[in-house]
Each structure stands twice: as structure tokens, then as C-alpha cells.
């Protein structure tokens, strides 16, 4: 079954390797550029000795060169989804072409077949996810130093969540494929559903996976704990009256200097840097949990309901 599982997944595995290779081809040159700039243009040295605001020039220069590239890199969020759904193809094609009947009438049990048919893509997904995490973490290392891991561009790629994303996409495609037995349609819809789920979780769910902290302070001296923190919400009151609403401030490297701020009372709901791993693991757990349920469903539907 091992040989059979591998041989029938060979093409898709090569496609995924190709995608990763393409990714590497895109990321490696620019990554080297950024790493060089980061070290040789003085940012590393600067940030090591003084806090962010003091390095404004160096940082500004870096951002000028690379920020748009880094922002574009957010589109890579689609890659775990793409890889996940593609790896489901051999399973669905087996159902679509009726060759599963061939497998079920050899001498192995259905369970054994299922183990191989689902186990292999899961294994491949895990390996691909690991490769992506390594690649992206390296690529975004300068950004991690600058903006911290909670910055959404970094958060999506440099922790364990990529594992959850890839498995989830795979599981979606497997579940849809088990029901529809049509590879092209299942993969397409699964990919779209992955995209929608990602957006939903990003916007509505992520902030609340771990209880955020609250901070109230006065004046323009932003507490250091807010550096590179992820702001869930904030507002500022002057004499009890709301004067500043959400989205008015950038914390971190830019200092917003204005005397009026000294009297404003800021209420901030945030996740500090230390929440990175709890958030990562919870979100990973969420997606992996969904993946497990979907895979269990696909397995059950295929063995109990299909003939």
C-alpha cells in the first residue's frame, strides 16, 4: 500500500515540490537582499543599542525599499491553501474514476486503503508546511526584528499556524471530494472556502482566541509593553469625552508627538509579544481540530456510504 499510495500521489507531490521551489526562487534573492540591507545599513546595530524611535531614519530607509514587497508577501497566505487542496487530488480522483472499487476488491481492507490514501497527503502536507515555515521565517526575519511577530504579515507565516492552514485546506478538499467525487470542483470550492475561512478567522476570531490584556495610561509616553504589540482596540478620552477612536495610532517605530496628548487617557486592549505562542498554538489547534473533524467525516462517508 505504501508504494501504491506514493505512486498514485507522485504527480501531485511533484507539483507541490514545484510550487515550493518556485516560492524559494522568489523569496531567496529578495530575502538575501533584505538581510543584507538589514545588517549592512545599520539597522541591526541601531536597534541593538537604542529603542526603535531613535532609529527612525534607518528604519524609514528600509521600509522605503522593502515594505511594499513585504506587504505583497501577504498574498502568500494562499499558498498553504493551494498546496493543501492539491494534495487531496489523488484521493478524489480515485473516487471519480471508480478505481477505488479496484482497490477495495484486491486483498487489503478498506481501513488499510484509507490509512494510506489519507495518511500520505497528511504527511506530505506536514512536510510542505514545515518547509514553508522555515522559508517564510527566514524571509521575514528583518520584519520580525522591526515589527515583531504579532504583526499580521509575520504572524501568518512564522509560527505553527501554517501547519493548521495546510491541513485544513487538505481536509476541506477531502471532505468535499468524498461527497461529490469530482476532483476539479471539490478542489476549487475547497480553495475558496479556505480563503473565506481564513479571512473570517483573521478578522473576527483571532483577537479573541486568547484573552487580551487591558491597559489604561495617560499621556504621550507609550508604555514599552505596547511596543510591537497587537492592538485589538483603543480609544482616548479627554475629560471623560471620547476624542480618539480606533485606528488613530501606530505604535512601534514612529513616535506621534503632540503636546495635547499629555492629557488624554488612553484605553488599550492588546496582545503583548508574550501572547504570540499562546495565540499561535490556539489558532493552530483550531484549524487542526477542524481538519481532524473533516478528515474523519471524509473517511466515514467513503467507507460507510460509498459502493
Amino acid at each position: 500500500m505504501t508504494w501504491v499510495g506514493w505512486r498514485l500521489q507522485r504527480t501531485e507531490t511533484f507539483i507541490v515540490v514545484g510550487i515550493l521551489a518556485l516560492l524559494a526562487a522568489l523569496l531567496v534573492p529578495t530575502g538575501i537582499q533584505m538581510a543584507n540591507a538589514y545588517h549592512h545599513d545599520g539597522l541591526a546595530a541601531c536597534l541593538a543599542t537604542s529603542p526603535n524611535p531613535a532609529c527612525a531614519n534607518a528604519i524609514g530607509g528600509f521600509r522605503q525599499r522593502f515594505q511594499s514587497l513585504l506587504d505583497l508577501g501577504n498574498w502568500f497566505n494562499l499558498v498553504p491553501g493551494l498546496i493543501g487542496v492539491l494534495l487531496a487530488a489523488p484521493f478524489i480522483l480515485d473516487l471519480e474514476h471508480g478505481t477505488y472499487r479496484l482497490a477495495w476488491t484486491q486483498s487489503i481492507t478498506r481501513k488499510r486503503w484509507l490509512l494510506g490514501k489519507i495518511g500520505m497527503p497528511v504527511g506530505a502536507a506536514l512536510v510542505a508546511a514545515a518547509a514553508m515555515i522555515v522559508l517564510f521565517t527566514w524571509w521575514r526575519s528583518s520584519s520580525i526584528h522591526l515589527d515583531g511577530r504579532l504583526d499580521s504579515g509575520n504572524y501568518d507565516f512564522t509560527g505553527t499556524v501554517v501547519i493548521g492552514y495546510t491541513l485544513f485546506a487538505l481536509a476541506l478538499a477531502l471532505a468535499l471530494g468524498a461527497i461529490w467525487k469530482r476532483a476539479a470542483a471539490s478542489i476549487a470550492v475547497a480553495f475558496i472556502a479556505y480563503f473565506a475561512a481564513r479571512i473570517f478567522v483573521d478578522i473576527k476570531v483571532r483577537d479573541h482566541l486568547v484573552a487580551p490584556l487591558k491597559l489604561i495610561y495617560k499621556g504621550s509616553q507609550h508604555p514599552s509593553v505596547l511596543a510591537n504589540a497587537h492592538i485589538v482596540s483603543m480609544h482616548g478620552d479627554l475629560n471623560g469625552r471620547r476624542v480618539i477612536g480606533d485606528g488613530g495610532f501606530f505604535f512601534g517605530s514612529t513616535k506621534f508627538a503632540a503636546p495635547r496628548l499629555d492629557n488624554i487617557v488612553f484605553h488599550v486592549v492588546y496582545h503583548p509579544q508574550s501572547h504570540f505562542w499562546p495565540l499561535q498554538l490556539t489558532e493552530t489547534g483550531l484549524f487542526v481540530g477542524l481538519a481532524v473533524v473533516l478528515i474523519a467525516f471524509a473517511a466515514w462517508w467513503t467507507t460507510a456510504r460509498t459502493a
Partner: protein
Amino acid sequence: MNDTAAIRTSGLGKRYGSGWALRDCTLEIPRGSVTALVGPNGAGKTTLLHMVIGLVEPTDGTVEVFGRSPRRDAQDVLPRIAFVAQDHPLHRNLRIGEMLHYGRSLNPSWNQGLAVARIEQLGLSMKQKIGQLSGGQQSQVALTLALAKQPQLLLLDEPVASLDPLARREFLNAVMAAVADDGITVVLSSHIVAELERVCDRLITLAQGATQMDGSIAEIVASHRLLTGPRSDAASVARVHNVIRESHTERQTTLLVRANGHVHDSCWEQHEVDLEEIVLAYLGYQPGNGAAQAPALEEIAS
């Protein structure tokens, strides 16, 4: 468990939604026999075969292969049964050699030498891609896959329906050679009766999920008669024999009967009936008297 029957079913039935694909099917297929399963499309042939191989769980009744349940005892039974599904599914982008490797990986009783010898005998090369073979060649590869497993029971679901006459003959020839070599039991479903007579020794007819006839072909042909005579009613004949089909013109009556013993009634002229006529009669075919006709089996074949 030593059972003389290769397959034994008892009240076997399968329901899909509100309709029964197969109902109350009780049959016994002896070891070493070559049995034809005949009936129009939708009669339940595939459903029956799927339940024998364990692909489908019965709704009612039981099925036993060599005395074991094909689903519950799959691990023991599956190696002894080979199944070639309709349109002989194979992995189209594998090479023949890889398809055999597939068979070897999934069957403990695989005989690689036999498989290789058959492929050579067919004039095919291990490097050819399955998808590039003709329909006849693909069916032969599917058969090779089935026979190399060294089964005791071979189930073929409409194996020759999509093949040209030459490919059909070659396929059946290969099956017959396997029976001669290993004494395997064969059940093949078909809606073409003509060729089955030389290849099969037993026949089962299915129509609308029900079995009507199950017996040896020699016995079936010997026990059926066509009686023709002046127009009369069939009652006197029907008292002794089973009237399968009756038709009347103004002056003549024709009866197809399954005789219980000798037909003594001298006012009837007796003729032998060939197998195809008998089967058609059982499946409901009424020669043109305006009543609804079940389509001729040969027409369904196209």
C-alpha cells in the same frame, strides 16, 4: 468451513431509497461452474455482484462466499475472490508494469510470473501506458490483474459489453483457459445471451431485482418446449406444465412452456427452443401483439 457452494445467498436484497435494486434473491452457485447472470440494465446484476464481493452491505438477507461473509470476513475472503467491474477500471496513467506492481502490493497471493507471462502472451509491453491501450487490451489487463491474484472465484460485471467481437472472443477465451487450468468458479453478468451458451454451464436470469431462473443451461434447454397448435386456451397445458409465455393469433396458439415431464398432449406440435428465446421469454418479451414489450436484449447491448 468447507462448503460445496462457491456462493450462497438467502433472501438477499438491497434497497436504495424507496426502490429495491434486488429483492429476495436466493441462489446457490456450485464450485467449478461458469454461471451467466443475465438481465436487462437495472435488473440488479451489478448490485448482486457488489454484494458478493463485499462492496455493498445487504439490506436484507445474507450472502456467503465459500461459507464466509465477504464483508465481515473480508480479510480472509477477499484474497479468494477477484472482481472485474464494469468498464474494467484501471489507473490510466500507470504503465502496465506499474499496474502489476499495484496488484503485487495489494494481494498476498499474487503470482508475478503468471501475470508477466499473460502480458507477454497478449503481445503487450510492461512500458505501455494503460491509457494508451485499446478497450480490448485494457480489459485483458484487468483480467490479468484478477487472475494473477490466483482467485478461486472470478466475478465479471459486463466484461465484454463495450468490446468488439474479436476482443470479446479473446477475453472469453482467456477466461475459459483459466477455468481449464485452475478450475476456478466464474460468474459473469451480461445482457448478450448469444455467446454465453458456449462458455457457461449455468444461467441465472434477473429482471427488476428478482431472480426467475437458476439452473444448468443443458437442463434449461432440455426442459423448455415451444408448443404450437390450433387456437385454444392454455388451461389444460397449464395444469401440468409451467406456461412461460402464450400468444394467440386468430387461428393459432403458441405456448412456451417449462415441461414437467413429457408433454403428452398430441394436439400440440412440439419444437425445441434455443436459450436466447427462453431467456427473452422469462424477461418478459412478448412478440408483437400490441402489449408493452420488454426491449430485446441485443438492442440493449448497443
